[in-house]
């Protein structure tokens, strides 16, 4: 079993390093700095950390004003609240003026677990991807998280970075270098491609290993940048393997699956299937129970791959 590492911890520690390197980095929270792990930063730089209380709309507005004055604000809370609770504030105060604000939300998806529906963000990627000019990234492990946060700090423009609550096994090795809009090929393969993000990347690798034993050879892509998406990697997957399954901890509508479908339909139509949360809200439960209940396991991916391969033109 791989060692699991917290993405949030990687975020907090990277933020602290960045704070030491760049005095313009400032951090905003909404009464959750111990959960988002930004307290690593605020402990060392109390004058550059602003807890806005339970007021997310105000927090993102303050972040916009800081960015307009040359600061590099990182604003964090749970993904249900940013973007969910303050979409219009993000739209008008950050996206439209293309301000240099980094929204890093933790607790994305249903693996939040026992807190239940109110705290499970399953629409945030659709919301964030709808915003013109935003870069939207879902890191798959702690190594990638550290690199993505570093990348966002040094590249101008608005970013939405979605992290999850549980620690995840490492899928990137130390030589991995994050590039915006570039998918990472984790397995080469010829029969089908599994395109996954976040929590689902580990499940995709497990599915590919299991399918290999059945003689099905899968390519696995970590599509951590949802926007701007790596269109050429998607088209290449459709051309080379002729069938694609997407896997995401998000609603089927408006997330990774929708984006991949748009690119495939417009360039090289091929059979697709979508492992995602169907049009529903989820229950309280343990993360593993929830992934099982809502169809987000390696077995669900395997089933989808077998089905999609059957739909390939003869």
């Amino acid at each position: 079993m791989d060692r699991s590492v917290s993405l949030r911890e990687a975020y907090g520690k990277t933020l602290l390093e960045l704070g030491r390197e760049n005095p313009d980095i400032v951090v905003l929270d909404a009464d959750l700095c111990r959960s988002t792990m930004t307290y690593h930063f605020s402990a060392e730089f109390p004058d550059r950390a602003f807890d806005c209380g339970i007021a997310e709309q105000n927090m993102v507005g303050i972040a916009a004003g800081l960015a307009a004055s040359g600061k590099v604000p990182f604003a964090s809370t749970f993904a249900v609240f940013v973007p969910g609770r303050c979409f219009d504030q993000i739209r008008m105060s950050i996206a439209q003026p293309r301000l240099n604000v980094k929204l890093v939300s933790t607790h994305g998806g249903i693996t939040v677990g026992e807190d239940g529906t109110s705290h499970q963000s399953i629409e945030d990627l659709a919301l964030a991807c709808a915003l013109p000019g935003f870069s939207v990234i879902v890191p798959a492990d702690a190594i990638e998280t550290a690199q993505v946060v570093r990348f966002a700090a040094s590249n101008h423009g608005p970013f939405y970075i979605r992290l999850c609550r549980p620690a995840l096994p490492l899928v990137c090795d130390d030589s991995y270098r994050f590039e915006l809009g570039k998918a990472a090929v984790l397995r080469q393969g010829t029969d089908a491609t599994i395109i996954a993000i976040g929590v689902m990347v580990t499940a995709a690798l497990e599915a590919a290993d299991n399918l290999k034993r059945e003689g099905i050879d899968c390519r696995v892509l970590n599509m951590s940048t949802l926007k701007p998406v790596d269109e050429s990697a998607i088209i290449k997957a459709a051309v080379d393997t002729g069938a694609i399954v997407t896997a995401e901890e998000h609603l089927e509508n408006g997330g990774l699956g929708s984006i991949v479908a748009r690119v495939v339909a417009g360039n090289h139509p091929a059979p697709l299937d979508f492992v995602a949360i169907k049009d529903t809200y989820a229950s309280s439960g343990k993360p593993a129970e929830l992934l099982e209940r809502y169809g987000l396991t390696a077995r669900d991916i395997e089933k989808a791959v077998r089905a999609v391969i059957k739909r390939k033109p003869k």
Partner: protein
Amino acid sequence: MEESGDRLKVNAGAKALSVAEMESMAKKLRRHIVTMIGKAGSGHPGGSLSAVEIVTTLYFHVMRHNPQDPRWPDRDRFILSKGHAAPVLYATLAECGYIPVEELSTLRQLDSRLQGHTDSNLTPGVEMSAGSLGQGLSFSIGAAIAARLNSQQHTVYVLLGDGECDEGQVWEAAMSANHFKLDNLVAIVDRNEQQIDGWTCDVMDLEPFGSKWQSFGWHVIEVDGHDFAQLIEAFEKAKSVKGQPAVIIAHTTKGKGVSFMENNPDFHGRAPSAEQVELALKELQ
């Protein structure tokens, strides 16, 4: 540019206007507002006209700013949170020299730099894209915090509508401005007592308005928002407040200066006809 201690010298060394000069500037701005909205065929005359003296006092008497260098880092900031009053800001920016006066006639046209609501990407001197109400105070807090972090001496001024104060975000922001002890932040509320659906007391009563701000930790100053002497004094007082933010509640008349627009909610968001523009311009001579 004058020394930072002397805040009454504005406009890249230009002298602050006298009250008499501001009276005449206010009329000119009102003529621009009525003309440009009439030409555009849509827009918000009422809340632009009510804010004329407030904006005139800031740009021609109080603020340090430089139309030749709109992004001068040490400029005082003016953030228009009630973005539908864009015409009063555009007219002022034109008279200051940020944009040509002739450009005012392009208001709301395709590809114009003067969009229906303010757009910070397009218009020199516009600090914030606004129009969705309730967001400017939060933005201004960010700007005021940044100034403090940078040890800059400038002041952040933000103009809100009174109807805008229905938005919950305004009160989130009001609470935090005091929490962060932002004495480099001055809010002005254009208290014209009207919003789209009618009088504010009928749509959503704001009173007791001054004590609301006070209880949120603000130093409250109430003035006649069409009286330059009172406005100048209020801004001086607001500047001197230490350890807390200040709000100037400027009591105004919606549609001020044009008889048939005054206190007429119909002119919140409707353009005057060509004949009405003529009539209005006669009144504004």
